[in-house]
């Protein structure tokens, strides 16, 4: 067998899907494994926005048997379009039919990113909801190709989407491309709404890029119940949706992209304590910097 094939197989198999297994919630790209939080989300109605959104709901007793149901909210569709980051794979594009609990998305063997979209067309109005679902890691392919492939008329594309061990977080800036029929839209307004109640508006630049500032809107005192299993301490998370509207050819297009986000990077962290302990360590090493008498003499002798 070709060595490259063996190596590639080994690399794929060593993916974080295996290393840190468990499908992550579509709305939590934290790199963590807050499965208990996913379970709590089940059955919640989407009442914080009127924009169309997709919700990924996980079910199952463990990560091996966990299933992902994609549930449309504020949009009525019969199918969900699913693109995988392995575009050339037989499952590169799939049409997932809606069931009682939503459209079921299988966890691919190699994990990786999926783009999921619901498209509703009524009269002269086309509405699209979209999310990214990541199955904890190494799909073997860079998902940029999947993101950039034209999937609908009006699109909001994350460039980049948070990778492994990362997620959208409050007080951070993330870039998105807004385009229509594959062409960047300059000066396009993009609305942001969050489940914590924030609203904002951003405008795309000449290249169609919009820099979105995720609002720091988590309540400071909010406490999360302790979670069982291997939950990494019940991560706090909220939802955000970006939406934009564009009229063309007598039709109105509304496209939304939703995801989750976490508190700001310094939530439950202390910079003062961090600097204090670092300084303490530095002071502990200071005696090493002092020259001993015999070394001083030797140095003086060298100089002489």
């Amino acid at each position, binding site marked *: 067998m070709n060595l490259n094939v063996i*190596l590639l197989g*080994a*690399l794929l*198999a*060593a*993916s*974080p899907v*295996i*290393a*840190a*297994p*468990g499908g992550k919630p579509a709305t939590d790209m934290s790199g963590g*494994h807050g499965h208990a939080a996913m379970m709590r989300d089940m059955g919640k109605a989407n009442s914080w926005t009127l924009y169309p959104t997709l919700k990924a709901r996980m079910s199952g007793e463990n990560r*091996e048997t966990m299933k992902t149901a994609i549930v449309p909210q504020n949009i009525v569709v019969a199918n969900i379009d699913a693109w995988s980051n392995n575009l050339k794979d037989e499952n590169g594009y799939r049409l997932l039919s809606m069931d009682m609990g939503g459209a079921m998305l299988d966890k691919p063997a190699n994990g990786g990113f999926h783009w999921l979209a619901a498209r509703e067309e009524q009269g002269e109005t086309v509405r699209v909801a979209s999310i990214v679902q990541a199955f904890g*890691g*190494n*799909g*073997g*392919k*860079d*998902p*940029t190709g999947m993101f950039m492939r034209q999937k609908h008329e009006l699109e909001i594309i994350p460039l*980049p989407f948070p*990778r*492994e*061990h*990362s997620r959208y977080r409050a007080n951070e800036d993330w870039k998105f491309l807004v385009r229509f029929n594959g062409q960047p839209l300059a000066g396009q307004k993009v609305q942001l709404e969050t489940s914590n109640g924030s609203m904002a508006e951003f405008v795309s630049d000449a290249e169609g890029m919009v820099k979105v500032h995720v609002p720091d809107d988590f309540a400071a005192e909010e406490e999360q119940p302790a979670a069982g299993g*291997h*939950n*990494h*301490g019940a991560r706090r998370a909220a939802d955000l949706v970006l939406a934009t509207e564009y009229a063309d050819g007598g039709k109105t297009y509304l496209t939304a992209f939703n995801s989750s986000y976490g508190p700001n*990077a*310094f939530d*439950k*962290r*202390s*910079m003062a*304590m*961090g*600097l204090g*302990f*670092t*300084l*303490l*360590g*530095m*002071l*502990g*090493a*200071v005696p*090493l*910097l*002092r*020259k*001993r008498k015999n*070394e001083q003499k030797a*140095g003086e002798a060298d100089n002489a």
Partner: protein
Amino acid sequence: MLKTIFPTLGRVRFAVQILMMFVTVYGGALLGSYTVNRISQSLPALSCAYDKMTGDHCILIVNQHLLHHRVGEALVKAQEVTLKVFIPVAVSVGVFFLFFFFLNKMFCGWVCPLGTVQELLYRIGRRLGRPLNRFNPKNVGRVRPVKWLMLLVLVLALPVMAGMGVVGNELGDPFCQVCPSRIATTLLTADSEQIAVRTSTTVNFALGALGNAMFGFIIIAALAARQPFCRICPMLSWNALFQKLSPMRLVKKDAHEKCEKCGVCEKACPMDIHEIGTQFGKKAFHEDCTLCGRCAEYCPDDDVIQIKFFGIKLFGSSREYYKKRVKMETPEGTQKKRVIEIKPGKPENV
């Protein structure tokens, strides 16, 4: 041309270190955000997963996660201890070994970003005239077991126990929480998050405080001691487990009468491996060796110390090379002052 740019093995290594520092610290920014998911995620060097720009992840975080999430949990549910548990562990270690097979512990001496940071700090320390603190043959033995303790407790035992529910989940990746590379590499990407101590639980706080104090100690100590963290790094012990399985080796002659009186290679060794001067043959390739090659560079006799791959000499000590090397830098790492001779004569083109 190449000889002008890379006149010594040390210069080649330094260039590789800087190149690998860009890959391990900024690789994601340079090669694409998703590169980290595509190289190996099992690198035998402290390439930190907390660094959002890193190009690859270190094997130790993968180990801790596997032991925490797979082995520990599966041990509780004994019926689930099946191939699906052990194959991932075996594959992860296998991928690591594919890298390791070719370069052995060069990952420590040539690739690790924290190793490079410490070496750069040491160079600054030389410029500032700071003393050199070394372990002598009598006390170096005291620090050597610490790396095994770090591996056993922080990388292996606690993550498994966290997976089993014996200890809290905060102890799922305890080494990462105290690893100075986490703070150093994230700071190098202008990300100050990791230097802020986590306060969510007492264990998180304790680990964070210890990690920060260790980081502070290391960056100051590195000005006056060579590779202070490497000596207790669990990657060193992890790599030592596989050291004998790689064809990349440090090889010393079985006997050489001059070694007893010389000892220059011992002075050159950044890990204070005195055995390189006193032992011969296989024993000279010590578990703490990072294959930096300085002992071979500073050995004044021909081919007494060599770096070999599958028995083929890649680099060997030589008297001529030694003479050239010591003119540039002392075995302890102090740069020699360059004297530029200006000969009097008639100016040209006047």
